[in-house]
């Protein structure tokens, strides 16, 4: 069953909150992972690992660098669901 974009956002926010200690409501689509949420590359890869697991998708390393904002990640995951 595919997840809706709001379910993906909610799930992603939980993953980011676990990793960073930020409140889940700080994780909104327009926020940049690096500039706004202060997430370094190792944390970003940790988030990707958990997100792949949670949503049953594959996010190739080449794609990760294109995921600037939370919204980018939600959109990519939504599209990657089969």
């Amino acid at each position, binding site marked *: 069953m595919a997840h809706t974009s709001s379910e993906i956002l909610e799930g992603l926010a939980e993953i980011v*909150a*676990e*990793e*960073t*200690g930020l409140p889940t409501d700080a994780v909104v689509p327009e926020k940049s992972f690096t500039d706004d949420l202060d997430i370094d590359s*190792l944390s970003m*890869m*940790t988030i990707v*690992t958990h997100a*792949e*697991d949670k949503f049953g998708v*594959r996010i190739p390393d080449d794609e990760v660098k294109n995921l600037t904002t939370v919204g980018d990640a939600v959109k990519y995951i939504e599209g990657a669901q089969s």
Partner: protein
Amino acid sequence: MTAPATRDVVVTGLGATTPLGGDAPSTWAAALAGESGARTMDNDWSEKYGIPVTFAATIKEDPSEKLSRPETKRMDPSTQYAMIAAREAWQDAGAPEVDGERLGAVVSSGIGGIWTTLDGWDTLRERGARRVLPMTVPMLMPNSPAAYVSLELGAQAGAHALVSACASGAEAIGYGLDMIRAGRADVVVCGGTEATIHPMPIAAFAASRTLSLRNDDPQGASRPYDVDRDGFVIGEGAAVVVLESAEHAAARGARVYAKIAGVGLSADAYHITSPDPEGKGQVAAMRRSLADAGVTGADVVHVNAHATSTKVGDLTETRSIRTVLGEDTDHVRLSATKSMTGHLLGGAGALEALFTIKAVHERLAPPTINVVTPDPELQVPLVRDEPATLPDGDIAAVNNSFGFGGHNVALTVTNA
């Protein structure tokens, strides 16, 4: 080139999280009260894997009580314990104002992040490489506790993790002493940590026949110097002390617990696990430590023994003490605090140094519990059941720590 003039080094902060308590004061109070930190483990490892030991000296306070959620996810338990102890020690020292380039961090673990290592391997086998977490390496590396403490405090004079099995925590303090004496730092946060209560290391220690199997009486299992001792009780936790040059401490009016007056190091070069039966390495470490401290046997009133509750190790050490101190042994008060804490492996030397510092500061040697029938070959007066008062005036105490591999570390503590 000659070494710089020796600088006195004092202890200004203490921190711990142990099987006896979630901080240094509660740990010390429980030790004076003769409590045991051993308990039956809440797991199915015995049924599931056939592990013959069902108890351990597990940490008293869950680290998540004091750490943020991301910290518990990013740090191996061994680092978590070290961070809790280091933060406490730092606050206890009054969070000194010190230039980062004059501040060091020396925090050892005997084994490293073994939970992370084995969890990573489990994940790889069960779920494949894509699920192994990116933080695995910085979490499992044995220098991780030292690195995180250095990050936390901005310690730029150096971050070090000396590894010498069960002597690691004491060696860390010895190294901190050397850093200050050599003029490379004014303040060094140092100690030891361990988190190995995982089924694999327990199975491995059990395989080497060094663990107590007294499953029906966990609290009575660690009994150094009792004739019925049958091995050590595995423990976990951390202890950290803040060392400071006496000059630096005096300049800021810091409260001083005691001096770390000397360190003696040696290696047995005899056997990978058994101590040299003649105790030559132990004797050398103690002699070097006393000489380094500039004290004699007449000054030594207390020894915190390595004493793990194994048949051979405990007696070898008491013979070594008598070899070093001769007739002065008779006025020593010997404490074997592993009877209460279990064996914290890489954390043990630091926790026992902390106990030795407190003993000198409060003039009170902690008890040795579970000694029902003292081994007739015990050659040193033992503090049993109740704490023993130490004399007034200038005193010295020695903390011995020995590790698999033949590592011997003796720290000499004197009153401030």
